[in-house]
């Protein structure tokens, strides 16, 4: 009897979790497992009957020639593009997000309107905002070229999204516009959890605001900052829509996700697309685990 009573909470917990387990199992765990398994097979979209090919989708050597994902220069180009994209856009978003969060934290009647406006780029569909940016950046009819020409900054129209020297920078700029709000929201929440007495004490002591920021606010914000940067980095490494809408599958900007999707949809290569997906997953997983270990190490040291 007694045992039964003790076990009841556990049973009701698992019953309540049943829909979650069903949903996540079917839509996430199973597909993820399938991706992993298929990355070792020669599966194609049209052919469900497959055979095991070992690591051939990743890498193999034959007659002095290397094949597979890791031997494909286009894959390494996609890796480079994605890493540059993630590093630059997340850095810029962190800086702008921090500045915006500090600004929005100022007590001022009417600041809720500003907060709502800042939220807009995050809330609207990426396809719509990317198309809008593509329009303003258009080589012939876009306002950005027109303004820069009139101001004398450039002497002839620039094909921002098509030219390989500007396209990566352009998608980064659009992404910064789109995702800075997310960073701002997280950092604002972090700022609001910093006890007010902390600033006030140092302000009364006559500490200048900038010093106050670097020695009081920033250290208290570090936990939030590291979580936000990790979230954004993971997200940025999986980037697809901004790049696809602005530049299609252009090799100068194609991301790892774009590469995997192209293998899957354009080349019908389920095995190869899976191998690329698994590789991206491993890269992301390494970053998450590294970050978690760093955090544990810090808490153990009592920081």
């Amino acid at each position: 009897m007694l045992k039964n009573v003790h076990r009841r909470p556990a049973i009701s917990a698992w019953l309540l979790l049943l829909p979650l387990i069903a949903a996540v199992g079917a839509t996430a765990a199973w597909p993820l497992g399938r991706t992993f398994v298929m990355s070792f097979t020669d599966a194609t979209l049209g052919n469900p009957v497959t055979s095991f090919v070992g690591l051939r989708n990743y890498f193999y050597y034959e007659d002095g020639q290397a094949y597979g994902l890791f031997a494909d220069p286009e894959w390494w180009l996609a890796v480079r593009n994605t890493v540059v994209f993630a590093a630059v856009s997340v850095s810029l978003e962190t800086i702008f997000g921090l500045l915006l969060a500090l600004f929005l934290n100022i007590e001022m009647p009417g600041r809720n309107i500003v907060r709502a406006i800042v939220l807009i780029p995050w809330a609207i569909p990426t396809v719509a905002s990317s198309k809008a940016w593509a329009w303003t950046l258009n080589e012939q009819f876009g306002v950005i070229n027109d303004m820069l020409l009139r101001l004398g900054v450039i002497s002839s129209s620039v094909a921002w999204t098509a030219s390989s020297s500007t396209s990566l920078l352009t998608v980064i700029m659009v992404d910064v516009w789109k995702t800075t709000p997310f960073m701002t929201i997280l950092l604002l929440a972090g700022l609001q959890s910093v006890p007010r007495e902390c600033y006030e004490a140092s302000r009364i002591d006559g500490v200048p605001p900038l010093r106050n920021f670097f020695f009081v606010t920033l250290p208290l914000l570090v936990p939030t900052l590291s979580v936000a940067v990790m979230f954004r980095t993971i997200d940025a490494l999986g980037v697809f829509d901004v790049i696809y809408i602005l530049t299609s599958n252009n090799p100068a900007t194609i991301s790892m996700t774009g590469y995997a999707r192209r293998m899957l949809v354009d080349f019908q290569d389920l095995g190869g697309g899976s191998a690329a997906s698994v590789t991206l997953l491993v890269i992301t997983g390494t970053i998450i685990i590294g970050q978690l270990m760093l955090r544990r190490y810090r808490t153990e040291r009592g920081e």
Partner: protein
Amino acid sequence: MTAMRYKILYWLTATAITAVVLFPIYFMFISSLRSGAEQFQVAYFPSVLRLENYSRLLTDKDFLGALANSIVVSTSVALVTVMVSILAGYAIARISFTGRALVSGCLLAISMFPQVAALPGLFNTIQGLGLYNSVGALIFSHLMLTVPFTVWVFAAFIREIPVDLDESAMMDGAGRLRTLFRIIVPILMPAIATTFVLAFIISWNEFLYALTFSLTPVSRTVPVAISLLSGTTPREVPFGAINAASVIITVPLVIVAFIFQKRLVSGLSAGAIKG
């Protein structure tokens, strides 16, 4: 005087931020009002007010179909997400059982992996279920994006409710489900609304799965339909129509962002920070 100066400086900065935020949206709107040869010109102000693009889109069978698909997919995803999250969020926040840490750990891991990692497997699964090129495929795949995240948000919100409330209800003999739906759910109504809106936005804006799992207008959502509006030469691209379609799917979300601003902010940060 310094207070006045401070205020002016504040609102000048606010105006500059607003200008940067609204820059592409403003030009999207101007372009949406221009059709024919006018759309291939640089324009800073709306010189003519032509609603041709809108009237053409809103009578176009494929576009209306895409709009209906978007609404059906996002609403279904949001409803299922909320149902699943209430039950699971309550279990994680309130019941201590072996495996609780494992469940929350798995959810966190799943909500962080890159979308494309599941793409080949999802493609395979969706084909196997006979859902390819159907609205069902999109509802199915979007649940992967919303559920793990919103369960976190819910658990965080439920933890903020005093435990005494449900404990006293259970003392009075109410079962778990009764306690959940009679005591917790009414208190959670704002959180439920927030989660619904968050899931709706994620699904409404989703592009990678929507693009990959649809082949014909039957299952296209508006973002996919917009991405397919193009031309082979710059003079053939229907800029007016693209921008009008973008306005149509953007406006509802801007309104939602304004209404739910505070709640969305607390929902997002609850999921990210408290988790």
